[in-house]
C-alpha cells in the first residue's frame, strides 16, 4: 500500500474512523482543530455522527451517551479542555465505558501556549479526574505510530471497557509525514453488559442501567476491587516501550513523543562522536516502563537525562521510581511551543558527561 503525506491530526482522525469510530463530539481548541474539522465531514460519510459540543463538558458527556449505547466514540481536545472533561473521564472509568480520548498537548499551565508541548504528563498518568482510577495512555512519537495506536486504542478501550487516552503533543498533531493508513473496519454497535445494571434494577437485570453511584457500601467497595484488578491486568498486558541503542549505553535519555524523536537524532550525532548514548521511550506512559529503568546496570550507566517539552520536568519521579537512586538523573526541558533541537540536547548531555557524570 502506498503512503500518504498527511498532517498528524488528520491522519489520526482518519485512522479513528477506520478503527470503527462512529461518534465524535468535541469543542474547538488549538492545536487539535483539524480533528473535529475532518470528522465533521468524514463521519456522516460512513454513517456516523458528529456533534460540535457547546463545551468540553457537553462533549465528553455526549461521548458517554454514545458509548453507553454501544457506539465506538471519541473526543479530542487539549490540556484546558481535558481539565474540563475530568469529571466525565472519571465517570467513563467508573461505569466503566469504553471511549477514546485524544489530548493534543499544548503549553501550560492555565490557558498556556497554543503551540505544542508535553505538559499534561501528570494529568494523563496520575490524575485525569477525581476519585482514583487508572487510564491506559499511549504516547506516539511519529504520525505512523499515532495512526497505529489510535486504531489499537479503540480495540483496547472495547476489550477492557475502559477509556483509553492518546497523549499526542501538538508538534505531532501539526507535523506532516508519510503514513500508511490501516484498513477500514466495519464495526457494529455493541450493547455490552453494564456492571451496575443489577444494582439499579434487581428485578429485571437484563435492562441496561448505568450509574456511578451505588448506594450499598459493600457493593461499592466490591466494585472498586473489581476495577483495581482490571487496572492490574491492563498494567501487566499493555505495557509498551522502545529501547533504542540501549545494550551498550553509558548514558540514557528517557523521553516520549516528539522529545523521543529529537533524542534519536541526538543519539545518532553523539554515537558518531563515539559517545554511547541510548534511549528508553515509553510508548505507554501509563503503564510506565519501570522495568526498563530497573534493569539498567549502575556500574555501566553513568547518567540519565529525562527529556520533556515541559518546564518543570514532570516525568522525573517515574524515572526515579524505576532507577531507585542508583544512577544520577538530570532533566532538560523547553516549553511554550519551543522545541529543543537535537544539537541543543547533545550539548546538554555533553555538559553532564563532562561534569557531574564523570
Amino acid at each position, binding site marked *: 500500500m502506498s503512503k500518504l503525506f498527511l498532517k498528524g491530526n488528520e491522519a489520526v482522525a482518519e485512522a479513528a474512523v477506520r478503527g470503527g469510530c462512529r*461518534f465524535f463530539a468535541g469543542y474547538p481548541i488549538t492545536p487539535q482543530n483539524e480533528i473535529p474539522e475532518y470528522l465533521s465531514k468524514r463521519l456522516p460519510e460512513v454513517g456516523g455522527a458528529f456533534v460540535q459540543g457547546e463545551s468540553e463538558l457537553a462533549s465528553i458527556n455526549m461521548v458517554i451517551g454514545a458509548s*453507553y449505547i454501544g457506539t465506538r*466514540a471519541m473526543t479530542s481536545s487539549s490540556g484546558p479542555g481535558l481539565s474540563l472533561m475530568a469529571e466525565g473521564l472519571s*465517570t467513563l472509568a467508573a461505569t466503566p465505558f469504553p471511549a477514546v480520548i485524544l489530548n493534543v498537548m499544548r503549553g501550560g499551565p492555565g490557558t498556556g501556549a497554543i503551540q505544542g508541548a508535553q505538559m499534561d504528563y501528570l494529568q494523563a498518568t496520575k490524575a485525569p479526574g477525581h476519585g482514583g482510577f487508572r487510564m491506559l495512555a499511549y504516547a506516539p512519537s511519529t504520525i505512523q505510530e499515532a495512526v497505529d495506536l489510535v486504531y489499537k486504542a479503540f480495540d483496547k478501550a472495547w476489550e477492557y471497557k475502559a477509556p483509553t487516552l492518546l497523549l499526542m503533543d501538538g508538534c505531532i498533531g501539526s507535523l506532516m509525514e508519510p503514513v500508511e493508513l490501516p484498513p477500514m473496519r466495519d464495526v457494529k454497535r455493541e450493547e455490552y453488559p453494564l456492571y451496575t445494571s443489577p444494582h439499579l434494577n434487581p428485578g*429485571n437485570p437484563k435492562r441496561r442501567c448505568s450509574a456511578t453511584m451505588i448506594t450499598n457500601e459493600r457493593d461499592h467497595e466490591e466494585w472498586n476491587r473489581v476495577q483495581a484488578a482490571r487496572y492490574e491486568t491492563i498494567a501487566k498486558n499493555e505495557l509498551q516501550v522502545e529501547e533504542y541503542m540501549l545494550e551498550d549505553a553509558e548514558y540514557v535519555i528517557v523521553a516520549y513523543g516528539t522529545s523521543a524523536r529529537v533524542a534519536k537524532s541526538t543519539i545518532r550525532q553523539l554515537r558518531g562522536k563515539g559517545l554511547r548514548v541510548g534511549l528508553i521511550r515509553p510508548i505507554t506512559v501509563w503503564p510506565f516502563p519501570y522495568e526498563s529503568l530497573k534493569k539498567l546496570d549502575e556500574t555501566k550507566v553513568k547518567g540519565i537525562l529525562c527529556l520533556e517539552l515541559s518546564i518543570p520536568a514532570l516525568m522525573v519521579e517515574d524515572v526515579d521510581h524505576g532507577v531507585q537512586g542508583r544512577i544520577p538523573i538530570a532533566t532538560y526541558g523547553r516549553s511554550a511551543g519551543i522545541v529543543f533541537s537535537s544539537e541543543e540536547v547533545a550539548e546538554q548531555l555533553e555538559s553532564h558527561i563532562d561534569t557531574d557524570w564523570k
Partner: protein
Amino acid sequence: MEKIYKRPESMQKRATGYCPGCLHGVANKIICGLVDEFGIADNTVAVQPIGCGALLCWTIDTDQIISLHGRAPATATGIKRSAPEKFVFVYQGDGDLASIGLAEIMHCANRGENLTVIFINNSIFGMTGGQMAPTTLMGQKATTAQDGRTPLQGYPMHMCEIINQLTAPVYIERCALDSPAHVLAAEKAIRKGFRNQLEHKGFSFIELLSNCPTNWGMSPVKSLEFMRNETMKEFPLGAFRDRSAEEA
C-alpha cells in the same frame, strides 16, 4: 372484574425513594404509564440527572443512565445521535437543568435534538438539603438564603420562556402536579412530547411545577397551597409553543 387502575407494567416493583408528599412520584408514574401506552418499554432509555430526579432509577423498568450533574441533555444527545431508533427522554430537576446544566439544555434545545425533556421545577435543591435554586421564588427561604431570596441572589429563571426564544424546539409547555386536573393536563402534555419524538418531530420541553414538603418545611397539603398561591403566580401554566400538529 375488570381492572381499570393498576401499576404500570414498566414500573419496578419496589418502593420509591421519595419523601412523603413529594410529587416526583406522580411524574414518575405518568411517565411509566405512557411508556406502557406507547408499548416502548424495551426501546426506551431514561436519561436522568443528579439529584432527587435520579430516584426515577428505582421506579422505571427501562434501560437507563444517570448522567453527570446538569449534563443529561448532552448524554441524551450522544445516545440519540448514534442510535436514532431508541426512544430517549430526559428527566431533570431545576438545580440540574437551570443552574449547572444551563448550557447543555439550551444547546440541546437549540440543535432541536429529537428528544423529550421533562423538567421538574420545585424551586429548590432537594437531595443536597434545600439550597437555593435558580427557580427559588423571591423571598422564599432556602438553606443558602436563610432570610429568603434577595435580588443579589438573582431572580427566578423561567426556563420555558427562555427556551421559547430559540428557533428549533417544537413543543414547550408548563404544567403542574398539584391537583387531579393539572395531573391529567401534565399527562396529556408528556404524551404529546413522547409522540413528537416517536414521529421524529424534534425537541419537546415539558416543565412540571412540583413541591418539596421536606425542604420547604411544610406539610404536603400546605405545600400544594403554596404552589397554587405562590409558585404558579411566578411560573404561569400553559403552552408557550406547540408545532406538534405540523409535519415532521
